[in-house]
């Protein structure tokens, strides 16, 4: 059965290629093979999964949920939401008070700073500078603390069983859906083997410190993560997010480690 792909993309890889040139040496024509750095386009693709693969993923995800919920006792998102609702919200009483206090401090300090900056109290320049410094310090530290509280609130749901299972499932999907072109045929990027074998291949790539592979893996995880969360599904969606992402550093800039000195091999013409 022919493979169907959701999205195909190309990334230029700087690599050494052999170039043959004809040179005259001692009155004789010789072929000189030079290794030069060149940008070579490499094709990648994201497989369009069939129902069988989707069901395999569901079972994999459920296995993880079992691990996190039953064996490790993590809460599900639904349980956490319900618990917070029963407890009167996701913040404790002291946290709520601190949150409210910080908001008040920030509002007052913003007013105070404006008053100092406009010098409504006719302060000396020295006093004014000192007060601005003190007020700015209070404002920054209060804003930082408030930011930490908000971030902690958002992070509460990061530790649910679903979030942890989703992270691993995205990685599982990546191992299954990532393809690359080799000799005109698309082949699995992490090899054709079992999940364990593909993980071994992934580890091998990561350990090799091959920047190109690393960046490609990141790209696959980014695309597949977006696809998994339901934010993109059609070819047009993939096109749009790729356009939106163009402001980010181009993959083309990623270069392979190459031998500094190009080697030369002289062969007399036959």
């Amino acid at each position, binding site marked *: 059965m022919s493979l169907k792909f959701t999205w195909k993309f190309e990334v230029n890889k700087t690599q050494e290629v052999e170039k043959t040139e004809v040179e005259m040496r001692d009155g004789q024509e010789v072929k000189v093979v030079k290794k030069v750095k060149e940008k070579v386009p490499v094709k990648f693709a994201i497989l369009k999964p069939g*129902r069988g693969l989707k069901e395999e993923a569901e079972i994999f995800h459920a*296995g993880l949920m079992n691990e996190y919920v039953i064996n490790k006792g993590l809460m599900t998102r639904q349980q956490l939401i319900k618990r917070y609702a029963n407890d009167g919200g996701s913040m404790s009483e002291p946290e709520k008070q601190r949150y409210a206090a910080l908001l008040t401090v920030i509002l007052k300090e913003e007013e105070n700073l404006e008053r100092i900056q406009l010098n409504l109290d006719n302060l000396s320049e020295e006093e004014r500078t000192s007060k601005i410094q003190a007020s700015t310090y209070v404002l920054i530290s209060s804003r930082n603390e408030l930011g930490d509280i908000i971030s902690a609130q958002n992070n509460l749901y990061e530790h649910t069983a679903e979030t942890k299972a989703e992270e691993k499932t995205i990685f599982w999907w990546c191992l299954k859906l990532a393809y690359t072109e080799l000799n005109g045929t698309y082949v699995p990027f992490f090899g054709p083997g079992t999940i364990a074998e593909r993980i071994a291949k992934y580890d091998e790539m990561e350990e090799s410190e091959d920047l190109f592979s690393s960046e490609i893996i990141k790209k696959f995880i980014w695309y597949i993560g977006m696809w998994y969360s339901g934010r993109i599904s059609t070819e047009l969606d993939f096109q749009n997010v790729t356009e939106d992402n163009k402001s980010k550093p181009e993959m083309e800039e990623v270069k392979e480690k190459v031998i500094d000195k190009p080697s030369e091999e002289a062969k007399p013409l036959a």
Partner: protein
Amino acid sequence: MSEALKIESCRKLYRDIVLGYSPVKNPRCFVKHLREIDLGSIESKSDAVLEEIKANGIHSEKEVLESLDKRGVWTKKNEEEYFGLIASIKDLEQERKKIVSRSQAEELLEIIAGRKRELQEIIIERSGHLRISSEFFLRKKFQQELMKISFFKDEDLKEPLYDQETFADLDYKDLIVLFEVFNEVSENLCELNIKKVSVTPAFLNTFSLCESDPYIFYGKPVTELTLHQLDLFNCGKLNKTILEQGNPPPENYEDLDKVVLWYDTEMSLLIGRIEKNKRDAAHQH
């Protein structure tokens, strides 16, 4: 016009039951009515499928429920309330069958509907917790197997709508279409509709000639009969018993619900009389 259609629908349904399949226009196919042995052959694979599912670290429903209870998420008390509610609905439905007064029956129906709504909410919460259990995935596989063996291209039910490989690769949206068609066919063949078929003269006249023998009626051994054929035959036997009591059934077949209600009521009265006779006989002894 619509009343005539009801009878017409019943005739069509009667035909489908006897033939053992329902024709479908979109997608053009035939949905096979299943036999007990069809369900048996799917269930016979369930142990192997369950083992395969569990090999992925997925726990059984019992284990998930124990874990939920330990963490106080869904406790044994919740579980007792859930089963208690199911039992109470069953009891009320049994009670309803024995009630002769229309007003009492309506009152009871309202209570049952309320309990069912309550149960629905509990089912949603409970099944939400159990979506990670091995039984959840087993049921899913079971339903897919049902779809695989139910859809055919031909009336002889010889050529499956999708071969093994195509079915395995069907997208979810195509599978959902099959589920919807299957559910529509099943809903059309619900208990009430089969009862309606069983009270029509078209059925009763034929049934009266078969000497209560399913082989004479369907021309097949009982093990080859579909579940709907068995249900219809059992309804026929009950209706025949009721008619033998001598009370004439309503002659207006335009409202089949009323005719079904008459048979239900007569059956309740008959059971009541039998129970009373039993009690009287026991009392005399």
